[in-house]
């Protein structure tokens, strides 16, 4: 288990039993009569991840009439939707490694990855299907479609340099923030929290999600290959312009790097040189500042919620997101 995940887990020790229950439910939910599908799904589960979505569901549900059984159904569903999208993303990005492990597409092939992703998605709906609340399903369906729309737009924008801050923010909203917002919203809704509380938790999830993705995009540049489990700078090499790059894309010294990255002709020494340039350009600090602004907004949403272990954990998670190292 990574150091960062251990740090994150220490923030919600009061809910550790619930998180382990969900972990077991996740494993149970991807059991399959097909050995390949089972192996592919468990392979993905074992790759870990921070489980931030399930944690948000549990913490948000504490603000209503908490039931672990209901929260677990929502949490498992959201994490499985996230996992299914990762399996398909690896096909799209032709990625062979994720979190230091071979991807499903690399271990088997693209088609197995497509079927495994679709299988996991079906299990996500099986999990949440027993919650008979129209709003829960409407919100989740809308969220899934928006996430997908974001990915489609990302492909459309791939290797296009004429992007601005608004385009970027729209993209990360769909890519990350909406699912975290929905994790909080659905967690609270499944526990019948009052509508004002649901709204505040949703906004907390949204702002935290924006900050989370900005930090993720920063770490893609500032972390080592070993920490990332993939080459640093992969976003740019895959044609995606992230916030730090937006700040320097007009610099004449940087443009040759961008062109080489986009054409796929970049050699290792150039990649290292490009990473050094970005790290020293001041773009990382500017991006970090934007992330901090989002985190401040997230914390503001929590102010009027009742104090307790859950609120404390949500505050600490926001702080963690701002400071995480990989």
């Amino acid at each position: 288990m990574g150091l960062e995940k251990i740090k994150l887990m220490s923030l919600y020790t009061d809910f550790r039993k619930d998180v382990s229950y969900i972990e077991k439910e996740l494993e149970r939910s991807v059991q399959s009569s097909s050995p390949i599908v089972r192996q592919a799904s468990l392979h993905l589960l074992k790759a870990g991840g921070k489980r931030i979505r399930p944690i948000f569901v549990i913490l948000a549900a504490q603000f209503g009439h908490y039931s672990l059984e209901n929260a677990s159904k929502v949490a498992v569903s959201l994490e499985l939707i996230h996992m299914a999208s990762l399996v398909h993303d690896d096909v799209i990005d032709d990625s062979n490694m994720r979190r230091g492990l071979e991807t499903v597409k690399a271990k088997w092939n693209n088609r197995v990855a497509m079927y495994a992703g679709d299988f996991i998605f079906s299990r996500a709906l099986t999990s949440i299907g027993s919650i008979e609340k129209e709003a829960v399903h409407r919100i989740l369906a809308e969220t899934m479609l928006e996430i997908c729309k974001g990915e489609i737009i990302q492909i459309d924008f791939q290797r296009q340099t004429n992007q601005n801050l608004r385009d970027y923010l729209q993209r990360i909203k769909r890519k990350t923030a909406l699912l975290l917002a929905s994790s909080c919203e659905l967690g609270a809704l499944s526990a019948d929290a009052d509508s004002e509380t649901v709204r505040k938790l949703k906004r907390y999830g949204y702002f935290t999600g924006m900050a989370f993705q900005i930090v993720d995009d920063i770490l893609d540049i500032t972390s080592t290959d070993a920490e990332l489990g993939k080459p640093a700078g992969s976003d740019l090499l895959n044609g995606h312009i992230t916030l730090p790059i937006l700040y320097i894309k007009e610099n004449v010294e940087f443009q040759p790097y961008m062109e080489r990255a986009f054409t796929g002709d970049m050699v290792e020494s150039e990649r290292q040189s490009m990473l050094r340039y970005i790290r020293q350009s001041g773009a990382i600090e500017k991006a970090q500042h934007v992330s901090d602004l989002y985190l401040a907004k997230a914390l503001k949403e929590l102010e009027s919620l009742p104090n307790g272990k859950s609120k404390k954990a949500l505050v600490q998670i926001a702080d963690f997101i701002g400071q995480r190292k990989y």
Partner: protein
Amino acid sequence: MDTKGFTDQVDNYIQNLRSAIYQPIVERDAGHAPIDRQKAFLLLLPLLNGEQWTDEMHSAALAIGAIHMAFDIHDQIDISDASSKEQQLMVLAGDHFSGIHYKLLASIPNFHLIRSLSTAIGKINESKTTLLQAPPDSLKDRLQMIGEVESGCILEFYQTFDFTRYIAIVEIAFPLLWLIQSKQNDLCNMKFPHLAPNTSDTEEWIELLRDNLHSRLQNSFYLHKPLVDELLSLTEQGVSKLI
């Protein structure tokens, strides 16, 4: 209802499905996703036979059409290289269609169908993986699995809306249609082309399944004659006036 009536109903359904799944970037760069008319025809059998067809059934049928489109487009992802923009968009188009299927079911809302279809979708993907990576040895088992893959969601629809008497027809029709495509050597358009059997096995099984279907249709007193004729035409040649 006659052949023209069937065609109009299927056209109308396909038009509604196209409008439900529309995604401008995907349409622009990856083109129209194909809609399987034969599958639509078999899904709509109760409607074409004059059964009462509610708005809820219409939405659920569109949801099933959307998930069929998701399956079909994901089946077209290249096994080793999906790095072109068109292939990338096809991956995402399939995910978008899946999302539309869920949105349609959530909008009814039919929680039972959300659960039963998700179970069916899971099984279908397990079977597709098996057919791709470790197919059963016997043609009989392969045909059964292909039938389950192709008809799984339609069967859930029939069961949910009490159209169970149509189940046996589609259970036979799908493997039969697959064999007919195989016989016609239509490898580009058929599912699981790597499993296409040799000619003598194909003929033998086509005969067997056709006899089975004919006797089933003869005993289906509730089916209107024009619909029986249409089904016979479809399963004789793999084509019909409708398709």
